């Protein structure tokens, strides 16, 4: 998959000389700012990120225990109308995800009516019997969703993946914007860009809105991190800091009498709302992993008793599981009564013999993914794979077809990106963040654009050498 032929979001199909009409002035900014000046600003941003310690750890890479994610200076821009259509689709999708979780851990109507194969849910590790029949405070499950989107044309957006557990990346959205305002102030003078810096306030509002006991004094909210060796620790501390709430580790919390407390220098303080950035497995050893010493013993009991809100709710993994993903159009239809405004990428479920046969016959053209994999691991990109890699996946598919899905290799859109040889189109994806509280669903006007820095590459994961860009959403009256 070369960038050639792909839709470039600024340059369109015609290259730098003939940008899309709406983006003429942005294309001019790109053309008129000398490359070495852009290069210099980009390096300056990266120095700042390193000094701030906006780093992430790469698994199995001890030399680079702390790396920064490369930052690209050329922003990705959404027109106001594009964004409005996208938002509608996102709200619809997240509402469906919440309705699905409420149903699955409640009456399970969708199973009784046979809309999705029952075994796909019931035998799925992500369906957590430990929280079966628990309704979270105010009935909100997926408070913070990151919906991964790809684009193939001016109006063609597809959902690649839902993230309803602990989606990360929002700190990059905010830090990238800070860097852009500092380094390219002229862009904000020339374009009316919707601000994203209200995100922490929106998140805090969302957290407070789901506090179990309304009416008493301001609920005590905390961010729960596995600790400062976690790869996303910067983000955890950043969010706690910008919301003005405590950043706690499991050892800081105790549960007594089905109530959660944090241990402070003056004794215990009751906690009402926990934004956890820890996987279900390590939340509570009594409920999930009796062999584990990690977590907060009794947390799930406190949650079951309705004494604490946990964001996102334990058990959400069943909603963003790749095996369930392919049924999202049916799920949206089941709960909303209408068609999904944001389509899925066409997906072959290898558990179905027909689909498996098609996938095996067309491996060289498809992207094959592990149903339970993440971070770009356990993935085959047919068009760029060696024949040895293809054969390896063929064997794996035949052995355990139910663990895989396959999708066509999409001609992902590109955005001009700084490379060693100057500006060139590079493939991007997009993760907008959607917040759901007891007071409604909110989409932040922005998100995380990830860019595959290698020419022709479609893999944007930071662990695989991807970078990030700021994502502008333009105000109604503005053009670019």
């Amino acid at each position, binding site marked *: 998959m070369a960038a050639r032929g792909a839709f470039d979001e600024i340059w369109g199909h015609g290259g730098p000389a003939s940008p899309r009409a709406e983006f003429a002035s942005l294309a001019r900014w790109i053309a008129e700012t000398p490359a070495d000046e852009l290069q210099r600003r980009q390096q300056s941003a990266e120095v700042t990120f390193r000094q701030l310690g906006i780093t992430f750890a790469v698994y199995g890479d001890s030399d680079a225990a702390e790396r920064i994610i490369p930052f690209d200076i050329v922003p990705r821009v959404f027109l106001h109308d594009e964004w409005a259509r996208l938002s509608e689709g996102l709200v619809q999708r997240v509402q469906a995800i919440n309705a699905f979780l409420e149903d699955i851990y409640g009456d*399970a109507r969708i*199973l009784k009516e046979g809309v999705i194969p*029952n*075994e796909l849910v*019931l*035998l799925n590790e992500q*369906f*957590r*019997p*430990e*929280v*079966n*029949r*628990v309704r979270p405070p105010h009935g909100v499950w997926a408070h913070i969703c990151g919906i991964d989107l790809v684009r193939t044309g001016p109006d063609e957006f597809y959902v690649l993946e839902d993230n309803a557990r602990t989606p990360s990346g929002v700190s990059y959205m905010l830090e990238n914007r800070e860097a852009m305002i500092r380094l390219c102030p002229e862009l904000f003078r020339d374009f009316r860009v919707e601000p994203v810096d209200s995100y922490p306030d929106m998140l805090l509002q969302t957290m407070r809105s789901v506090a179990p006991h309304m009416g008493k004094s301001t609920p005590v909210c905390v961010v729960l991190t596995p600790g400062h060796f976690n790869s996303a620790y910067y983000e955890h501390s950043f969010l706690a800091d910008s919301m003005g709430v405590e950043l706690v580790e499991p050892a800081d919390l*105790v*549960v*007594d*009498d*089905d109530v959660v407390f944090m241990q402070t220098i003056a004794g215990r303080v009751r906690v009402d709302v926990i934004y956890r950035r820890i996987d279900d497995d390590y939340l509570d*050893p*009594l*409920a999930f992993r*009796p062999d584990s*010493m990690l977590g907060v*013993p*009794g947390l799930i*009991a406190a949650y*079951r*008793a309705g004494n604490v809100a946990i964001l996102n709710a334990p058990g959400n993994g069943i909603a963003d599981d790749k095996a369930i993903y392919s049924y999202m159009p049916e799920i949206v239809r089941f709960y909303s009564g209408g068609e999904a405004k944001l389509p899925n990428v066409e997906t072959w479920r290898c558990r179905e013999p027909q689909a498996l046969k098609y996938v095996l016959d067309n491996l060289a053209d498809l992207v094959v993914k592990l149903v339970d994999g993440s971070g770009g691991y356990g993935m085959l990109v047919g068009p760029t794979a060696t024949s040895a890699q293809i054969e390896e996946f063929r064997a794996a598919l035949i052995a355990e077809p139910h663990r895989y899905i396959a999708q066509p290799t999409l001609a992902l859109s590109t955005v001009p990106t700084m490379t060693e040889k100057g500006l060139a189109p590079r493939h991007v994806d997009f993760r907008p963040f959607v917040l759901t509280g007891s007071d409604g669903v909110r989409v932040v006007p922005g998100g995380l654009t990830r860019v595959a820095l290698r020419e022709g590459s479609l893999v944007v994961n930071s662990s695989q050498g991807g970078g990030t860009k700021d994502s502008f959403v333009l105000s109604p009256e503005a053009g670019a």
Partner: protein
Amino acid sequence: MRIAIEHRTQYRFSQAQDRIVQMLRLTPTDTQDQTVVSWRIGVDCDARLREAIDGFGNAVTMLYAEGPIAALELSVIGEVLTSENAGVICGAAEPLPPLFYLRSTPRTQASVTLAEFAADVAAGEALDGLHRLNAALHGRFPDAPDLPDRGCAAAQAFAAKTVTSRDVAQIFIAGARHLGAPARYVSGYRTDGEAHSAPHAWAEAYVEALGWIGFDPATGLSPDESYVRVAVGLDATGAAPIAGTRVGHGREQLDVDLHVDRLGGEE
């Protein structure tokens, strides 16, 4: 049958503990053939107990105790009225569909030999097959006493010489699931006039048209009115009578004193 249960668990710690949090699955619930007349969980130190129903429909009790705790005794005293129903379970809370219990766990994964054994003895019609599997396991492991959980997996126990009632129950579950029958682990009590150092354990399997049916591979029979069902789970870990964490150093020593007696008189 009227059954009296007295189940004492004593922990002694080499160093005093700062905090103890335990999840107890020690309380039976009512079914059509099991009525809890009285039931009480007691703790010999300053502790808080909270009751709830978990996702499997079990009655669970959370125990929170603040240190320093050098020793802790949990006592369970109660009385249950039971009747006979050929091993068929009726009227239990069933918050999860039977299909869920086809899910395998690390402790109930069938090995090749276990799977072959199950397929060999249980060929044919589902209910008969499960009864044959139950009897065959009893034949293979005639002595499966009620001992504390060693954390053993079914496949590992199947290859071992000595097993406990917990192990054979898990072997039965692994075999039944391999045969396509949803199966679950049951922890509870049984009156057999003997002293035990741990509660009893057996299995239940789901048979279309009949529902959940008990199988006790430790006896080769189905549970009768001498059994009291307490908790179900996917395996021994999931239905463990006591799951606990403690904050503090040192080792712990565990003593169990368990009496299950049949009371005089008819029902």
